[in-house]
């Protein structure tokens, strides 16, 4: 199966793309996907502790099962608005 991974901000700059397609075995979880992405982009692993993942635009635990066609967002710490 294949999932679409969307990357933003610092994560997007490290990977060099805003979106990548990743092939996964059936039954893969968010955690499996993370390991696959970190294997492919080692620099991303350095910020692993700061990242959260969203599946189809909802925050997801590492144990969540992925389905073919899922959209997975890689979300660095957010900083919208202004520092006031």
């Amino acid at each position, binding site marked *: 199966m294949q999932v679409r991974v969307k990357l*933003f901000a610092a994560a*997007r700059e490290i990977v060099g793309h805003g979106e990548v397609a990743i092939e996964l075995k059936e039954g893969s979880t968010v955690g499996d996907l993370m390991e696959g992405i970190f294997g492919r982009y080692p620099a991303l692993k350095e910020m692993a502790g*700061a990242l959260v993942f*969203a599946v189809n*635009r909802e925050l997801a635990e590492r144990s969540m099962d992925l389905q073919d066609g899922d959209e997975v967002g890689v*979300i660095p710490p957010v*900083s*919208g*608005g202004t520092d*006031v």
Partner: protein
Amino acid sequence: MYEVTEKPLSLEGVVSAITRRTCGAVATFVGIVREFSRGRQISYLEYEAYPEMAIAKMRQIEGEIREKWEIEQIAIHHRVGRLGIGEASVVIAVAAAHRQPALEACTYAIERLKQIVPIWKKEVSPDGSYWVGMGS
């Protein structure tokens, strides 16, 4: 009434869009790009969003607000792309029958926006650029 846009934001447009005859108060918040941040002079900011999820999270904030306060309408518009000093990055407006819920809900909306809405900013200064929130 949610928007993530590259176009300049209009406070007046947002206020007039949400005001109804039943509203006695509209509370607003405008976030502005400031010249100095954490001791560094800022040249400009780059905002980036996950637009579809940002809109979904803005709706979630509205749901949370409606559980706590009696409001009529809320609008949140966030700008993305390159913003210069003095430009508005976010406009929030809350219309209600009375001032107290409007003011409190407006404060709540900007605090929650900064916690859960997937929007990021990069500070570009003469000595380099930094994504805010990453290890700072």
